[in-house]
């Protein structure tokens, strides 16, 4: 429709109102010289190309390249995943044989794994599958070795070590709060060396040293006094002395002394009561027990007995 053919027969003839545009561009004047020249060569009238077709520049056609189907389709079921995904890298849909979806679609399922930027943005741990991971500390950074991985903790049940009363007391004093009395476990943690193996060796060394040190008896250990005792020892306490003196006291200095054995047989419960207060702490219950024992000791009558 845009190109209008005008034959010479029609020159000066009636204008086809339908086909001829109202305005003729000056550059394509119908009576230009070359039009008349070519007219002499051919029989046919040449076509007057009023609106020349624009020459389109050559454009290479985009040809979609052939892509191999995703690797996942060809993966054997029993492949070694560690070889497929050996290190940390961005998610690749064709390599991961999993129907992963990530993102949000209104009124539709979450986008699949192909061309999914969300899946590429998030860090993944596909290089840290259980058969691959053998170290304690791994993380999704270029280096999977965490400096915390050097720390070594060993736990020993203290009851399993061959210790006597003295050695056990001494090892408890040496380890301090590394010992948990609730489950009888001694925990040694070493982190001073740069490598795990070195720390493990050091922990073993420490345990050995502790064990042998606790069996040693130093000359100054004989100077242990009541305040140094690990638990309240009534037999060696000032309380025992004062009770003995009180029980054997009488207004006349040369009165018959009650024998110590006789007294001691009566005192076991008192001893238990006072040791309980000292070892377990003072509270209403232990104090009441102490009171009852003291009342027995001093032969005081119960209030209720007279009521």
């Amino acid at each position, binding site marked *: 429709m845009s190109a209008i053919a005008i034959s010479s027969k029609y020159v000066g003839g009636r204008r086809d109102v339908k086909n001829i545009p109202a305005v003729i561009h000056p550059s394509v004047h119908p009576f230009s010289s070359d039009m008349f020249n070519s007219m002499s060569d051919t029989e046919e009238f040449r076509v007057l190309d009023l609106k020349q077709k624009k020459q389109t520049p050559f454009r290479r056609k985009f040809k979609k390249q052939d892509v191999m189907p995703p690797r996942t389709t060809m993966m054997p079921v029993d492949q070694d995943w560690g070889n497929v995904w050996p290190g940390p890298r961005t998610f690749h849909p064709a390599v991961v044989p999993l129907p992963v979806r990530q993102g949000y679609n209104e009124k539709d399922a979450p986008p699949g794994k192909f061309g999914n930027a969300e899946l590429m943005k998030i860090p993944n741990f596909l290089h840290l599958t259980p058969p691959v991971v053998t170290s304690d500390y791994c993380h999704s950074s270029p280096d999977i070795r965490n400096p915390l991985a050097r720390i070594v903790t060993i736990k020993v049940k203290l009851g399993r070590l061959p210790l006597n009363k003295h050695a056990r007391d001494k090892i408890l004093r040496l380890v301090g709060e590394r010992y948990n009395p609730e489950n009888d476990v001694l925990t040694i943690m070493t982190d001073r060396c740069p490598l795990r193996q070195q720390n493990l060796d050091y922990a073993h060394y420490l345990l050995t040293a502790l064990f042998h040190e606790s069996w040693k008896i130093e000359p100054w250990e004989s100077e242990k006094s009541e305040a140094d005792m690990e638990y309240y020892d009534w037999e060696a306490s*000032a*309380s025992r002395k*004062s*009770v003995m*003196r*009180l029980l054997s*006291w009488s*207004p006349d200095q040369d009165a018959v002394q009650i024998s110590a054995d006789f007294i001691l047989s009566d005192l076991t419960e*008192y001893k238990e009561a*006072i040791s309980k*207060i000292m070892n377990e702490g*003072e*509270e*209403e219950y232990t*104090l009441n027990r*102490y*009171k009852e024992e*003291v*009342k027995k*000791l*001093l*032969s*005081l*009558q119960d*209030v209720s007995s*007279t*009521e």
Partner: protein
Amino acid sequence: MVYNFFKNLTSEATLRGISSVLHKQRLFCTAAQASQILATNEKHITSFRTAESNPLKHNFDHAYRFYTIPVEVKNQLFQHGGLPKYFNEQAKAFMETCVMVRDPALEILHYLKTADYSRPAIRYVIYGESGCGKSITLAHILHYGLTAGFLLIHVPWVPNWMRVCKEVSNSATREGYVDLNLDAAEWLIHFKNQNAALLNNIDLRVSKEYAWSKREKTEEGVPLLELVEHGINRVKYASECVVALVKEIKLHSTQGRCKTLVVIDGFNAFFHPRTRVVTAEKIQVPPSKITLTEAFIEITKYDWCNGAVILTVDKTGVADDRRESFLPIYQLGKEGFEHLDPFVPISVREYSEKELESCLDYYVDRRWLQNEKSFTEEGRKELKYLCGMNPRRLMHVCAPL
């Protein structure tokens, strides 16, 4: 004439059948409230009051009830302290000193009555949260001691010496020791006030000669009161006099010439390492370096008989670093515990329901609670929750009502 007139009046009253009311009234109240008490129902009174003002006869039938300490007894016992300040003020407002007969006091009275006095003196340690009535319990026991004819060695509040002592001077006889002269003299006056009557009856004499200085000495064989008088008159030797007096009493007690009741409030103050007693060189003195301490440590030992020792431990009596718990072994510390062991711990607790009701009834009776809500069940419940059953807090809560 006048006496006869009253006698006739009373007998006439008996005939009229109102004797019981009048009789009760005479027993338990001062004249000021006579008309008021008369108007009140007698049955109602007996629910919170007991006419038995003789602590010798107190037993568990009188529990939770108030008894009146007679004015002359109060003057004799508590002239120089012994009752808590606010309690004393309240007693003044009530125009009578009423003390509730409570379980811990009854328990100790029971022990005092039944104990074997030929055996070493038993140490009782009263403990409890502050404001629960430890000092009032002591007051009750003191009254018992007085009535039962005990010689009283009573220290109203030990921390007074350790905190607000009146005068500090270096001891002349003991190296490194410090005397609190005025406090010691004050205590001697207190002792004399409490025991003069008894000491005039039983003849206690000084067992050995005390030489105070070149010219002054107390001869062997003079009455014990003379030793006390010497301390009061020669304040310089008051502290030494207290030590000597206590040793003498211990000796007499052991030999059976007298029975002694030692009552010390705030005893744990003797075992706290710090005091506010400062020497002229601005050096803080520990309690063990105060002469008075020695006297009262001496009398609380086990090595004497015919006596009983009743102590309280109070966390308000010591500095902040020992206020975590009111329990006695913690308050006494290691040294104090070893000194007193074995002792009988006696706990003074908050009011029970019955005791609280009784106390509120008493306050209503004294017109101390005038707010009409205090008669209702609801009002009482509110008071109960406000004070948390603590007697002192109840007193403070009720004061403006």
